[in-house]
Each structure stands twice: as C-alpha cells, then as structure tokens.
C-alpha cells in the first residue's frame, strides 16, 4: 500500500526549500523572523509566526528526509537522522547522547512519549527562579492546544510485551504506573519511531507544523549551520550561516547571511548555547551554557522465559513515576521508569562486555526485556548539571560531571529496576555495568550484587536522550539567560524557544513541555512583533 508523503507533495507544490549542500554561491536573505532549528521549538514557532502573517526563514543543519526515506534500518537511520551518527558523547565520553539532526529535529526520531510539565517542576521554577507566570494553570491551555494540534492522547492499544512487563512488575510490587500519551494519528504500532516514522502517523514537526509553515510561505534552508549572530548595540544585526556538505559533517565555502527583525534560537540545548557562545553574546552573570541537564539514564536488561520481541509495537507506552514521588523534588534524586524499544544496534552497543559474553546476551535478544530509569537532575545543590563549551573548531561539547549524588540515584534505580524485573518473572537480570558478567538469578542476589557495584563512569553505562537547559529562564537576569517568555535578557531582538530554556530538567520526556511553552512564547512574540509594526 502506498503511503502518501507530505514532504514530497509539498516540494512538488513549490515549497521554498534550499539544500545548502548544493549551493553554488553565497546567499543573502531577509525575513521578519529567522528561526534556527526545526525541532519541537522551531517547528511550533514557525507555524505560529507564519499564521500571524510574518515572513519566516527556518535554518536546519540536518537534511530534509521523509517517510519515503524511512526504511526502519538502524544502519541508515542513525547516520542520517542523529547528531554525530547517534554517537554524540559528553566531554569525557562517559555519557552517550541521542539527539536528532534532521528537519523536525528530535521529534522526527523520538519515541512519542508526551507528558505535560509536572506540577512539582513548575512549582520549583516558581519558587527558585521566580517564574510565577508559568504555573500549571497558566500553561494548561497551551498544553491543551498542542495536544489537540499533535493528536496527543493516551495510547489505547494494548502495550507490547516489553511495556506490559513494566506494568505487571509494578502491579506485583504495588507501585503506581500509568499509560503514556503519544503524539500519533492512525499509528500502525510498528515500533520503529526512533528511525523516522515510515507511515507519517507520528505527529512530529516534520509532518505537522513545518509543512504548515512552508505552505504559508516560510523558507527552509537545510544542511545549513547557524554559525554566529552578528551583534551590535544590544541587538542582533544578522545571522551568519555556513553551508554543510552532503554528509552534513564538514563546512563548504558558501556562506548565507540572514537579516531579520527578530531572531529565534531553537537549536536544542547543546546547539542554542553554542551559537550564543560563538557569537560572544553578553553574559554578565555567566549563565550561558551552564545548568545543562540530561535526565541521565541507567539501563537494566533482563532475560524472560517467553519471547518479548521488544523491537515490535509502540516503543514506550507504560511508565511509573513511583520513584519520583518518594521524596520531595529537591530531595535525593528521583527517577522515572520506562521501557525502551529494543533493536539490535542500539541494544548491542548498550550491553556490557565483549566476545562470547556479549554474544550470549545478544542471542537472548528476542527474550530481552529492558527498563530505563531517567534520573531527575537539577533540583538539588549537588545536581548543578553540566556546561556547554566550544572546541577549538567552534563545535559544541557538553561536560557533565557524574557526581556521587547522581550515582546514589543510579544505584537506587538499578535496584528498583532489578526488583521490578524479577517481580515480572525475569529469569536473569543484567544491570548494564561492565562488572556484571553473568547477571543475577534472583532479587536477593541482585540486591546484594548491585549494592557492591562500583558506580563510576564507563563501568556503568549512562545514556541520555533529553538535553535541557543552558539558556535557562529566570525572572532575575542574574539567574538566567532569558526571561519567562524566552526573551534574551541582554539582546533586544533575540528569543530562545527550545528545551535549553528549562532551568532544571523536566522529570518527564520533554517534548510536550517544549511544545506548550513554545506555543505560549511564540504567540506572545507574534503579538509583540505585530505591535511594533503597527503605524505610530
């Protein structure tokens, strides 16, 4: 059955899309607003601003790919659709970071989990960062609007076995669990969301807001790296971009200069701070790039008696917040439990060991159950997060110290996951740690073994798919890079519209937090720009 491809149809209708890897000469462009990045923040911004009648240019360093290209193969998807082929790492290489790099950003490859920003997180932002206008009640209509726009609703299809094991284990232990809301319409329940949705069911920016913006006349530049903002007299005067080659890794000589009335950074929580750092943007209180959070993730694998087939079916549909609720938000680090998709490359890379031991685990692939714990960072003095900096070549790199406070949470998470997996019937449990060779055969054994594990970088596999912070919001310019509307404290015509705004981690998969906050801030920006344009 042929699946219609809204991107190829749009291109045929005459969308203004320029692939800079084919550019033959420099370009100079103008618009009302230039938006850097086409992920959750950039997509929503582009749709709202074009609807308000503003001219918009979107700048994306990834390529424009669509359902016709999405063949559900890891070997193609990671190099095509992820930052650094899915191998982005922190400065000391101890944390693997999965981040999208394509039109649609991470929304093109995420696993569709949608949660409103938790009330505890918003309350902490109010009390610690003075963000009194971002309360749960004030944001509720914005979340509702984006839920409607993106088809976000609870997943009513029965969970796949990998997720049902999370549910059954939680019930056995008497801990709370819930059904995840997903941004899908007419989902085929295939399980390959992380490689780009082949059926356009996932309501990513790629098939929703970006087509809407392009239909309304926005212009999209792909394979284009936003290099730096030209800053003069407290304002941004231009955005200077560089063309990338077809692989999207190396610079070409062509330059693109864009002048706009207003500039929006939505390049993600590594990319947006990096542009401001390269631009030497004013940062009198040294907030830029600081307080970058990851939801550091530790992983527990288990072997079940029956087949699990964790590659099949919607990837994350059941969660448990029980361990987020055991202590106050600013207490010992809490964590959210989810059940990730299991595919050969990602699973093989994640598993500990090499040679016969690793192969033996891989041969249990169809019986493998996996749980991940997302640690809620940024709510405690001993959890200040990481720092985005620049390499000599100007490319960004995140340093993120794994402190004893984080490891304390990681150990409780590995214990909790092992107990839950045994409760769900696991034959053996393998916390992903280089010193766990044969796994544990019982909860009793696991409890004793995990208590003794040296939790240190590299020995313990730590990954992240949620980068947040680095351009944090605060009511006081001494505490943040932007105000609560995402307006830069020191540059008049610059806003940040992405996860880098968050002054802490979210404590849940962040996409809906970005959608809702951006819908609000882009709407406020559209009003402000309309006012400024009105005749005096």
């Amino acid at each position, binding site marked *: 059955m042929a699946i219609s491809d809204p991107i190829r149809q749009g291109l045929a209708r005459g969308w203004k899309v320029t692939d800079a890897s084919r550019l033959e000469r420099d370009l100079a462009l103008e618009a009302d607003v230039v938006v850097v990045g086409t992920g959750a923040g950039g997509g929503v911004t582009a749709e709202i601003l074009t609807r308000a009648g503003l001219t918009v240019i979107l700048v994306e360093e990834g390529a424009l790919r669509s359902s016709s290209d999405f063949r559900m193969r890891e070997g193609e998807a990671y190099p095509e659709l992820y930052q650094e082929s899915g191998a982005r790492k922190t400065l000391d290489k101890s944390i693997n970071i999965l981040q999208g790099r394509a039109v649609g950003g991470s929304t093109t490859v995420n696993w569709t989990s949608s949660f409103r920003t938790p009330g505890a997180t918003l309350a902490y932002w109010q009390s610690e960062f003075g963000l009194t206008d971002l309360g749960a009640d004030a944001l509720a209509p914005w979340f509702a609007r984006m839920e409607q726009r993106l088809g976000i609703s609870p997943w009513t299809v029965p969970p796949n076995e990998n997720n049902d094991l999370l549910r059954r284990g939680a019930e056995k232990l008497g801990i709370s669990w819930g059904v995840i809301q997903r941004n899908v319409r007419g989902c085929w329940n295939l399980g390959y969301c992380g490689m780009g949705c082949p059926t356009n069911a996932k309501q990513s920016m790629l098939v929703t807001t970006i087509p809407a913006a392009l239909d309304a006349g926005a212009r999209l530049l792909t394979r284009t790296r936003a290099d730096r903002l030209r800053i003069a007299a407290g304002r941004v005067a231009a955005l200077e971009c560089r063309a990338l080659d077809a692989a999207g*890794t190396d610079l070409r000589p062509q330059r693109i200069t864009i002048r706009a009335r207003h500039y929006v950074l939505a390049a993600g929580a590594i990319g947006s701070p990096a542009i401001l750092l390269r631009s030497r943007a004013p940062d009198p209180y040294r907030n830029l790039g600081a307080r970058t959070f990851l939801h550091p993730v530790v992983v527990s694998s288990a072997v079940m008696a029956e087949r699990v087939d964790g590659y099949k079916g919607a990837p994350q549909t059941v969660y448990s917040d029980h361990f987020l609720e055991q202590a106050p938000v600013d207490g010992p680090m809490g964590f959210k439990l989810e059940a990730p998709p299991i595919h050969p490359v990602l699973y093989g*890379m994640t598993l500990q060991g090499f040679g016969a031991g690793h192969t033996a685990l891989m041969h249990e692939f*169809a019986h493998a159950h996996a749980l991940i714990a997302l640690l809620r960072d940024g709510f405690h003095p001993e959890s200040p997060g990481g720092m985005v900096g620049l390499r000599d070549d100007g490319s960004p790199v995140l340093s993120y110290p794994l402190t004893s406070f984080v490891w304390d949470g990681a150990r409780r998470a590995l214990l909790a996951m092992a107990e839950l997996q045994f409760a769900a019937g696991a034959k053996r449990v393998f916390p992903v740690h280089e010193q766990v060779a044969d796994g544990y055969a019982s909860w009793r054994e696991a409890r004793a073994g995990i208590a003794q594990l040296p939790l240190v970088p590299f020995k313990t596999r730590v990954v992240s798919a949620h980068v947040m912070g680095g351009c944090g919001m605060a009511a006081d310019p001494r505490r943040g890079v932007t105000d609560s509307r995402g307006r830069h404290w020191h540059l008049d015509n610059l806003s940040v519209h992405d996860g880098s705004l968050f002054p802490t981690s979210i404590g849940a998969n962040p996409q809906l937090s970005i959608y809702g906050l951006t819908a609000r801030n882009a709407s406020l920006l559209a009003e402000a720009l309309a006012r400024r344009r009105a005749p005096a």
Partner: protein
Amino acid sequence: MRRRTFLKAGVAGTVLLAGAARIPAAAARAADSMAARGLSSADRVVVAAIAPVMLAGALPAGEAKAKAVASVVDGVSQAVAGMPPATRRELGELFMLLDLAPTRRLVAGVSRPWPEASVGEIAAFLQAWRMSRLALLQSGYHALHDLIVAAWYAQPESWPPLAYPGPPEV
C-alpha cells in the same frame, strides 16, 4: 575533548610513551588523514584483527567469516567517515596509537603486528582497556566496542541468531 587531548592524555597517562619522539608528527598525519575520510589501510588492519575477538561467537564460521569481518571493517569505516571533524580527529588519534608498533606494544600490550596477534592477546588488550583506571583507555575501548558492534548488528546477516526478523514490510 580538545584537539590532540587524546594523545596528550595518553602521554600523561602512560609515561611509556615518553621515548617515542616521532609520535607527534605521526599523530598529526594520522589525525589529518582521518579528518579527511574513513579508516586508513593501517586502521583497517587493526579493526580486522579486533572485530573477530570483539564479536567472538557472533560471526559465521568458515569461509563466510572473512567476508563478515570485511563487512564490519567497511561499516566501521563508513561510520567514522560520517562523524563530525572533531570526532574523526579523536578517532584518528586512537587508531594512530593502535597502528604504530611502539604504542601498540606499550599502550595496548600487543607485542606482534595485528594480523599475527593471537586471539588471547587481543582479548587481553580489550579487557585491560575496558577495566583500566584511565578514562582515556576506557573511552578507547568503548569507541571500538560501539563502532564494531554497531557495524555488525546493522547487517541483516547478523539477525537470524537473534531471532530478529528484521523490520516489517510497509
């Protein structure tokens, strides 16, 4: 990681390198060649030797094995070629350490050239780096692990023993 930190940290972390005076120029050459493309022929030899040990029990036996190893080497090379320049440079430094005889002996502990090294010797090298106290060597191990494992399990040939049917038809 800043340019050449991999090498600098290697020098700092292993006094053993102190005598190898020709290394910096060679490092620069290796890193620059890596910045330009995928694996060099010397790097390919290293990966071809390490892959069967990293993937012990996973690769087919007999004549099919050489073909599988070659496909893993190609996959690693393609993955490296697709990395951003800064990452390619760091990987270039890692492979330079493994390519050159003095550092192969002193840092990896592999006494013979890679094609002649025994399975036991290569496994001991991987295990030593994996369990090392030095972040540099641990990160080197993980880079090799992730590149080689990904290159193999991306291939449909690796899926039958996993009972993984591959992606569905759409």
